[in-house]
Structure formats: C-alpha cells, structure tokens
C-alpha cells in the first residue's frame, strides 16, 4: 500500500514517521515536467541531394498569357549522383497553386554539363509538372540549366517555390530557393456603384459685404510674411460674421 494515501489528521504522526521512506511517486524538485532539445544542423537522410535553383525570383501580375521562366539550374549530388538514365526529372508547381506550365513550349534551351544527357520535355498532371527525359546517368556535380519555357494561367495570388522530384517517386526532393510570385490584382468591392452626389438643401447668397473673405492653407510663418505687418480681415458672408487674421507680435 502506498504511503500517505489515506492520511487523516489523527494519522499525521504516522505520515511524518514514514516520510523519508515514502515512494518516489510523490517526490519532486526542480523544473517542470517538460524538456526539449533541437539539432542545430541538418543531416542528410541517406539519398542523393539534388538541388534546384532559379536565377532570380519570378514575379507576374495575375493573368493568362505565357510568361517566361527564370533560368532553372539543377545540380546533382557532388558525391553520389542520383539522376539516372530512364528516370525523368520532374519540376513541379506545388499542388494547389493556380498556375501551369505552358504546354506549347516543347523546346527548352538546355545547358550545363548535363545538357547532352537529357532529352525532350513534356508536361503532365494538367500541366503542373514539367518532365525532362534523362538519356544517361548524371555524373557527380553535373548541372543542367533549363530556359525558354514559360508559365501561363497564373491565377493564384501569393508566392510559391518550384519543387524538384529528380527520381520521379512522387516526393519533393528539393525546393527552389527563389520564389514565383503572382501579384495581387484588386477586385475588391462592396455595396453601391462608383458614383456619388449630394445637393445643398438651401440657397445661399453670393455677395460678400464690403470685405474680402480669404481662405488660405499654408504654414503660419507664410501667412505672416504675406500680411506683414498686420493682417486682419472681417467678413460677412450670408449672415455669418467674423474676423480672422494673423498679427505680427
């Protein structure tokens, strides 16, 4: 039986007597009951590390017409190359991002050390994926540049990063560090139209009785310069009477 669990006032002495031998279940001390530790550097997960990077961020206003991509560079693992003959390289527009590749662009300009190791381009998944055929294994550190392709139907707003699936296994292996941004087009609205009017409900006389009424909007020092040494006006406008001015001190 666990110590202390049925203590009453009359058994207080008993509790004291066993206190030093009580179960660890009720002991404690510093801290709370929580701990966390985090790695501060990244570790590879065992596969080839293939990188993708665009030459620059890509920004477009929302629209449909084809817009040229920034040159994309794919770099295979410098130690254990992973791009293999017969397995296409896939460059994906992230799922849910409303934009497509321009499927009429069937001829990309290819460059880099691996330019001769790849073949035709094609598009799948409703033109969300660019497929680049691979004709021979890449060597360590091989690079492939891709240009003269384009996006279209970029109807989303916000930004995203292109994804690389170099071994066509369906998982994103790397993300482009540059962004593709579709600028917001303002279509906001609410009630009413874009027109407004308001009429005075009473007539007002147009005469100003024997005085000049002026309305100016300028810094006080300019008023002083304009009306030096003393500026003082009186006005009577349609029954309203008053004075105003600025007096040099």
């Amino acid at each position, binding site marked *: 039986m666990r*110590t202390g669990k049925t203590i009453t006032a009359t058994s207080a002495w008993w509790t004291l007597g066993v206190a030093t031998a009580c179960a660890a279940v*009720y002991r404690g001390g510093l*801290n709370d*009951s929580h701990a966390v530790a985090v790695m501060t550097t990244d570790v590879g997960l065992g596969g080839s*590390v293939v990188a993708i990077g665009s030459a620059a961020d890509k920004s477009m206003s929302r629209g449909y017409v084809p817009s040229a991509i920034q040159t994309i560079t794919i770099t295979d693992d410098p130690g254990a190359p992973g791009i293999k003959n017969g397995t296409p390289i896939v460059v994906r527009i992230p799922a849910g991002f409303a934009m497509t590749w321009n499927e009429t662009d069937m001829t990309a300009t290819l460059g880099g050390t691996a330019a001769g190791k790849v073949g035709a381009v094609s598009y799948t998944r409703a033109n969300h994926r660019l497929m680049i055929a691979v004709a021979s294994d890449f060597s360590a550190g091989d690079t492939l540049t891709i240009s003269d392709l384009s996006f279209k139907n970029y109807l989303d707003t916000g930004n995203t990063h292109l994804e690389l699936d170099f071994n066509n296994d369906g998982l994103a292996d790397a993300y482009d560090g540059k962004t593709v941004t579709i600028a917001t087009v303002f279509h906001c609205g609410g009630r009413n139209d874009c027109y407004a009017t308001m009429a005075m409900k009473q007539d007002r006389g147009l005469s100003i009785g024997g005085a000049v009424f002026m309305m100016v909007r300028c810094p006080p020092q300019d008023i002083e310069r304009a009306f030096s040494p003393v500026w003082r006006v009186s006005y009577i406008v349609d029954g309203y009477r008053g004075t105003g001015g600025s007096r040099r001190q």
Partner: protein
Amino acid sequence: MRSSRILVVAVLTLPIFAGIAAANNVVVANPDLKSPGSGLAKVEFDLSWDNSWRDSTNYDACWVFAKYSTDSGTNWNHATLSASGTNPAGFTVGTGTALDFVVPGDKKGAFIQRSASGTGTVANTDMQFVWNFTADGVSASKKARVKVFAIEMVYVPQGSFYVGDGSVSDVRGQFENGTSGAAFQITSEGELTLGGGGAGSLGNNNSTSMVGVTSYDDFNDTTSKTLPAAFPKGYKAFYMMKTEVSHRQYCDFLNTLTPAQQANMEDSSLNFNVNWRNFIKKTGSSPVFFGCDANENAGSATNANISLLNQTNDGEWVACNFIYPHRGEAFADWAALRPMTELEFEKACRGPLSPVAGEYAWGNTTLETQTTSMTGKSSVSETPNQGNCVISGCSPGGAYRCGCFADASSSRQNAGAGYYGALELSGNLYERTVRVGIAASRSFTDAPGDGVLSSSGYANESSWPGFVGGEVTGWELGHRGGTYNGDSLSARVSDRFWAGCGNNGLHYTIGFRAVRSAP
C-alpha cells in the same frame, strides 16, 4: 477541530520542506539523426529525469516525440516512428537504466519507462528510436533536423474506481449512484445511463448548485442520457501528464507553429500580466519567438527583446494560464495526446480507493497551512514555504511552478499529489475535462491527436469537443480541480460546480493537462 488539525500537520511538515535535493527535472540532450537508409533514420538523444519509479501499483514515464524540419528549422512537422509495440526493432535505450520503449499503434511517439521495479534517477545516453520519414512524405534526398520533446507522465492502470464522494454538504453536482447520494463505481468501459434516477445510473445530485444548471449538464434525476461505450471512462489504462502545461512548454508549442497557426494560439495582444502570473511575450520581428519575462526587463509584450527572454527568473516553469479549451486541445493534438474526461480526472486523483467526502486530490480533506512566501520565485526552483494546494488565500497569488510542492521526501499529502503521482490536480489552474453532460462531447473517443494541426493552428480530431467545420474551435471542455483564486470547494476531487461550463470567463485561471490511452 479542522483548524487544529491543519496546524498539527503544518508543524510536522515544515522541516521536510527544508531539504530539497532532488527533482523530476526531465532533460533531453544531444539530439541527432543517425544511419539513414531505406526510408528510415534513427533519432538519437540522451534522456534523464529524477525520482522515476516503478512499483507494484504503477510507474512514471516520459512521452517522447519528435518534430522534424526539412527547411533548416522554419517549419516543423510530426515524426512518425517505424513500428509499434514494446522495444520495436531498431529502438535502443542506450546506456543507463533498464528502460522500455512502448510505441502505440499510431506510432506518433513512445512512452519510455522503467522495465523493472525501481526508483531514482534515470540518465540514459544514446537512446534511439526510428523515424519512418518516408511515411511522413519526406524524400531521402532531403536534409533534416529534429526537435525531441519529452513530457513526464504517470501511468494510471486499468481498474475499477469511484466517481463522486458521497458528500452530503456543499453538494455541487457530484456524481452519485442513481439518486442515492453515494459514490458510483465504474467497473468497465461499458455504456452508462446518465441520470434519470434509475438503479445503476450515474447521477449528478440533480445538478444541484452547478453553474448553469439547466444549460450545461443535460441530465438530472428525471432526465436521462446515454454515455456511449466509446467515451473514455477511466476504467482502461491511460497515461496522464504529471503536471499542468508550463509556460515554456506552451512557448515551445507556439515556436513550432507557422505564423498563421500562432495567430490563433496566442492572444492578439498577449496576456502578459505579472499579477496573473502570465509571463509570455513575443518578439516583433519575423520569425516570431515566444518566451517568458517574469522579471519584466524584455520590453513590450509584443515586441520583446529576445536576448532578455527566458532568463533564470522569467517563470518558464510556472503552470501556464490563458490556455483556452480549444488551445489546450490544439496542444494535445500537436503532442499526439488527447484531452482527459472528467471521469478520468477523478480516477487520477482517487485511484482505486474508497472515496472520502470532500477529499482533495491527495485523498483527504486536509489543506496544509497556506503558502505565505516562496523562495526562488519564477525560477527553476520556485518553492512555496508551506502548503500543498494553490487556492485563494495563498501568497503570492497566481499559479505556481509545476510540481512545486513535491520535494525530496514529500508524502502524497505534502506533494498535493493524486494517487498515481500526478501533481496539482487540486488547485493551481483549472483542469479542462471532457464533459459527460453535453451531447456533443459524449461522442468523444480515446483517439489521440496525430501531431498535425489545421493550417489555422486548431486541433482537427473529429471526435474532440468543439469540433466544428473541420477544426476544434469551440469552447466545450469543462473545469475541474479548482484554481489559484478559487475557493477550496472547487478544489475537491468530485466538485462539479464548473464541470458543465465551457467558459468560466476567468481565463487567467485556466490551464491544461493532456492524457493518452495506454497502448
């Protein structure tokens, strides 16, 4: 009689508090990823905690789980382990105490616990569990880092227990057997009849004196409802967090969320207030970092100086308030735990023992002389000078450090502990519990969180209270166990004054503690 009894206990226990030497003090260190291959990688870490035990009644454990990032720590996702069961292939407890990895079927984490009877400090190095990163959709061509989290838990074994304590005075909705006024014994997870007055039904003293009598508990002596078999009743074994969620624990949760998720898990202006003892501030620049500032030297609550957060006296270890129920549920989902039911709450307090009318979590009606001061205020060693329960009348006011009454030689009463070793079940901050008295909550099951929140930061477990439109946004959890500015009645195990209420309007009094059904 009562006052003299309290005095005697206080005199006897004061010397015991003088000698704090040990701590639970769970620490995770040196996390690393090892031996990646075939879609798996070993997550290695060191783990230690003090005052661990395993005896014939139960044991404590650490719930250990990992979050991974494939973008150098910007975004964090829950890691799925490779296999379930006890000590699955590839898992190793490293060097140190004989321990077991117990991995539930969903493989969202592991309970690490003593494999044999014993007590004392656990300090194991080079422990490893296996992350199945392919199952999480992570390419082997990625680089990754992990955060390893450990939460101290207590194991509550399967068995019968009582709800209600047979109180005949200060009756406030306590459970009873039918309309007898006597405690009700739960002997299985089978379906129960709530109310109606029939023999064998779980009554609630006709909802007497509960807040919102007619709107919150939908059963009474004449109206009956059915509590489904799938609703966790506490009969089956479960693990419970040893203490309430602390400030740093909640901050660590916030600091793994996206900005959109953080926005719903923190208040727009935060609730930093030293009188309420809420110490959370955040930095103003992106990425936002949440930390504590009890010593009030870090500047604005929403534009704090990061270098002055989380100092040695910044209150990180104090139980965290303002955890609204939907936030508590989000924490539970994120940690792959779940909310507890109010029946499980009573079991964790009382254990298998016969109830004592008006008892507190430590099994009797004795409130030790209340705290009048503390040492190490807001530090890792914050310790009250006396007392065993944080309720109205304690000084200083506000919630106290998690586990503050337990020391190197404390008894159950001294520590303010429930039967199985959970701390502060009475007082400090309200526990938030799944209600039996509302239809929407009776569909709750023991399904744990999966570590994944909605894009808005909410829990998204469909059986959980407050689930609306794909997210847990409702305030459906009730209150149990009392709070630092509440009276002693609310701190009683069976008191249900606030049990049927989802929002008591006093958000500085509410905390959270999660559980998980045993595999």
